[in-house]
C-alpha cells in the first residue's frame, strides 16, 4: 500500500523513549503495547516533570493572590489559556474555558447555553455515532425544557447520512451536536460542511472534539464551530483539565453554569452579578496545575507537528486495517479507507466476545478496550453490544499492530480449539 506523505515520518523510537510507562518493566516478559489512547493517552516525561515542578515550585491558588507564588501560578495558568487558543486557532484566549474534560464542557453548553435558548418543542440534532457525553447532556436538557432529539443516521460504512441530515435541518433545529471524529467507528465527520449547513438553518453547532484535537490540526474558525470541546488527558496532558471553546458573543450572552468563587462580580444573599468571560464559567478552584501542564503537552505536540501526528496515525491505521482485514471472521466498523478515519479501529471477532478478546490480548501485554465505548446507539445500529477497539497515538508503531494481530490469532486458537 502506498500512501502519500506530506511530512517526514515520526521518529517513533525517540518519542517512545519520552514515555516512561512504555519502558517500565513488567512482570510479563513482553513490552507493553498500549492501544487505548482513545480512552486516555500516556504522558511524556516533559508532562510528568512539569506536574512535579508545579507542585514543587509554583503551587498556589490563582487570581486573588497578591504574593509572588500566586502571581506566578496565575500567569502560567493564563499562558496555558493562550497556548490552547493558539492550538485550535480561537480568535481570543477568552474563548477558551478550562473544564475537567469533554463531558463537563458539553454539559456546560447544554445547561448555560441550552436552558436559555432551547425551549418546549425545539429540536436538538445529534448523530447516531455520538459518544454518550455528546448525547446524554442533551437528553437531560430536553427533559427539562421539553425539547425533542433526533439523530443523523449512520450508513452501513459508518458515515453520517447527509441526506437525512438535510431533512432534519428542514425542521429548523436549535442545535446540531456532532462529534469531529468517532471514538468507535473512527469516522472523521465533515464538520465544516455540517456546520455550514447548520448555520444556514439557524442552528448552533456544538462539536465534540475529544478524538480530534489530540490527533489532527484543529481550526475552530475554519470549522465554523460555535462550541468545541476536548479533553487534555487524551492528548498527553494530565487528567484534570479539558477545554470548552465557545465563540465570544455566545459565551458573553450565557448565564453561568456552576456558581461559586471566582465567577462573580458582586454577591448579595439573594442575588449576584457575574464576572466576565471566561472567569464566569470557572467557578471554584480550577485544576491549576493540570491546566498549566496541558500547555506543556500542547507544546510537545506542536514540536512534533499536528500534521505529522495525523499522517503517522493514518499510516498506522492503514496498516492496521490491512493486517486485521486478513483475519477470518473479523469485521471492522467504519470506513474502509484510512484517509477517512482517525487512529481508531473497532472490530468484532465472530464467536468471541470482546471482553474475552481483550483479556487474551492483555495476556500478551497488549492493552485494548472492549465494550460499547460509550456509543450504545452506534453499537445497536450495527447489531452489536460491544466491540474490541485498538487506538493509536504518537508512540505506536507497526510492530504494535503485529502484536495485536498475534494476540487476536491466539484468541481464535483458544476459542476455536
Amino acid at each position, binding site marked *: 500500500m502506498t500512501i502519500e506523505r506530506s511530512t517526514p515520518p515520526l521518529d517513533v523510537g525517540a518519542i517512545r523513549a519520552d514515555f516512561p510507562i512504555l519502558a517500565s518493566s513488567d512482570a510479563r516478559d513482553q513490552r507493553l503495547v498500549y492501544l487505548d489512547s482513545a480512552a486516555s493517552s500516556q504522558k511524556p516525561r516533559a508532562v510528568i516533570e512539569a506536574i512535579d515542578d508545579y507542585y514543587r515550585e509554583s503551587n498556589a491558588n490563582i487570581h486573588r493572590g497578591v504574593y509572588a507564588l500566586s502571581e506566578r501560578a496565575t500567569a502560567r495558568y493564563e499562558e496555558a489559556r493562550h497556548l490552547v487558543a493558539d492550538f485550535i486557532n480561537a480568535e481570543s484566549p477568552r474563548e477558551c474555558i478550562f473544564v475537567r474534560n469533554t463531558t463537563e464542557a458539553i454539559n456546560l453548553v447544554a445547561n448555560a447555553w441550552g436552558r436559555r435558548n432551547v425551549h418546549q418543542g425545539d429540536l436538538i440534532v445529534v448523530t447516531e455515532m455520538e459518544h454518550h457525553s455528546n448525547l446524554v447532556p442533551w437528553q437531560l436538557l430536553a427533559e427539562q425544557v421539553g425539547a425533542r432529539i433526533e439523530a443523523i443516521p449512520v450508513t452501513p460504512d459508518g458515515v453520517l447520512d447527509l441526506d437525512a441530515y438535510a431533512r432534519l435541518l428542514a425542521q429548523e433545529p436549535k442545535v446540531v451536536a456532532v462529534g469531529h471524529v468517532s471514538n468507535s467507528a473512527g469516522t472523521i465527520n465533515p464538520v465544516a460542511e455540517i456546520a455550514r449547513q447548520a448555520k444556514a438553518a439557524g442552528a448552533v453547532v456544538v462539536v465534540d472534539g475529544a478524538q480530534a484535537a489530540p490527533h489532527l490540526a484543529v481550526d475552530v474558525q475554519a470549522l465554523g464551530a460555535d462550541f468545541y470541546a476536548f479533553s487534555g488527558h487524551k492528548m498527553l496532558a494530565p487528567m484534570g483539565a479539558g477545554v470548552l471553546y465557545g465563540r465570544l458573543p455566545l459565551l458573553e450572552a450565557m448565564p453561568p453554569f456552576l456558581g461559586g468563587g471566582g465567577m462573580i462580580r458582586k454577591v448579595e444573599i439573594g442575588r449576584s452579578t457575574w464576572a466576565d468571560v471566561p472567569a464566569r464559567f470557572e467557578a471554584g478552584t480550577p485544576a491549576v496545575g493540570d491546566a498549566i501542564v496541558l500547555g506543556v503537552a500542547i507544546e510537545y505536540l506542536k514540536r512534533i507537528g499536528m500534521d505529522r501526528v495525523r499522517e503517522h496515525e493514518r499510516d498506522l491505521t492503514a496498516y492496521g486495517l490491512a493486517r486485521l482485514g486478513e483475519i477470518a471472521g473479523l469485521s471492522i466498523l467504519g470506513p474502509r479507507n484510512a484517509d477517512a478515519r482517525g487512529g481508531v479501529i473497532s472490530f468484532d471477532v465472530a464467536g468471541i466476545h*470482546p471482553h474475552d478478546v481483550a*483479556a487474551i490480548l492483555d495476556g500478551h501485554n497488549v492493552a485494548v478496550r472492549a465494550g*460499547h465505548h460509550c456509543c450504545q446507539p452506534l453499537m445497536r445500529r450495527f447489531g452489536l453490544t*460491544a466491540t474490541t477497539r485498538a487506538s493509536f497515538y504518537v508512540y505506536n508503531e507497526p510492530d504494535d499492530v503485529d502484536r495485536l494481530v498475534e494476540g487476536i490469532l491466539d484468541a481464535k486458537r483458544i*476459542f476455536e480449539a
Partner: protein
Amino acid sequence: MDNLYREVILDHYKNPRNKGTLDPADYSYEDTNPLCGDEIRIDLRVADGRVSEVRFSGRGCAISQAAASILTEMVENQTLDDVKALTKDDLLEELGVPISPARMKCALLGLKALKAGIYGVPPHDEDL
C-alpha cells in the same frame, strides 16, 4: 490469563447447561452489566420449596456465560433457602479460575439476576 480460559470455562461457554427460558416461571429477572451491555436472564420454577427447573438466557462473554451455566447447575434441586444463602464466593470457587476485579461483574451477572429474581430487587455487588 491462560488460567482464565481453562477447559471448564470454555466447555460451559460452548456447551451451556440449562440454556433457555421458562414461561411461565415462578421467578424471573434480567440484569444488564452497564459497563458492557451484556444481559443475562434467569428463570426459575420452584416446587415443594426446591428449584425444580432453572434456565438462563442472554448474551455475554465466556466468563459471564460460563458462570451462569455453572450457577444453574449449582441451584438445581436446591431449596430456596439454600439458594438465598449462596454467596459470590461459592460461585467463584465453583468457577475455579482467577477473576480479576474488572471481570468480576461478568462473573457475577447471573448470580445478581438470580438474587434479584428471588428478592424482587437487584442486590448491590457488595451484598452478593
